[in-house]
């Protein structure tokens, strides 16, 4: 069975600085999808960025980028120019390419942004 591990329960970053959140996963599949979701205090789950395993190029969305290392089964999220609104819980998630679209989540990293 696939598993997702986030080893940093909490992180802190200064406003305008860069922070990297770690995620590793375990799978025997060669094709899959990886996601980072953000959960602010409002509780809403917001998709931040996604990566297809068959793509070698790392995904980027504005200030958010990933470092996808397929061989190492690592999928870290880098947040550049951190803003106060980035403070949230961040979840890494894995999805198999099968039709059911089920997501497997990590335990989350709580990010604090210091002014």
């Amino acid at each position, binding site marked *: 069975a696939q598993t997702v591990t986030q080893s940093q329960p909490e992180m802190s970053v200064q406003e305008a600085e860069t922070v990297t959140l770690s995620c590793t996963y375990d799978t025997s599949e060669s094709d899959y999808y990886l996601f980072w979701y953000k959960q602010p205090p409002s509780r809403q789950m917001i998709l931040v960025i996604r990566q297809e395993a068959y793509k070698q190029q790392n995904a980027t969305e504005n200030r958010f980028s990933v470092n996808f290392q397929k061989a190492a089964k690592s999928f870290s999220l880098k947040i550049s120019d951190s803003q106060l609104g980035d403070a949230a819980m961040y979840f890494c998630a894995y999805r198999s390419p099968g039709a059911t679209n089920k*997501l497997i989540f990590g335990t989350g990293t709580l990010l604090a942004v210091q002014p």
Partner: protein
Amino acid sequence: DAGITQSPRHKVTETGTPVTLRCHQTENHRYMYWYRQDPGHGLRLIHYSYGVKDTDKGEVSDGYSVSRSKTEDFLLTLESATSSQTSVYFCAISDHGKVNTEAFFGQGTRLTVV
């Protein structure tokens, strides 16, 4: 924003009582899911549905049942609530047949069993 509505948003219930949470979507997505979120565990899949009257168990399905009689509604029932079922419950939807489709989540329901 995807049209997903969970009801109720908050509920306090007593141990041993039945509880039903409702998820309603206006997106006509085929797949619907119920997750629970607990500190230290992230989100874990309870049950999911891949069509009307088609459901299957997730990793933490014990003590829960689901029903989907219409495309737009997915109900989660706790037959006899226990304190271990105190949690935040999320409904999610996703489309079928699209590569790399993302899941859209409802606002969550905070359930407290006393």
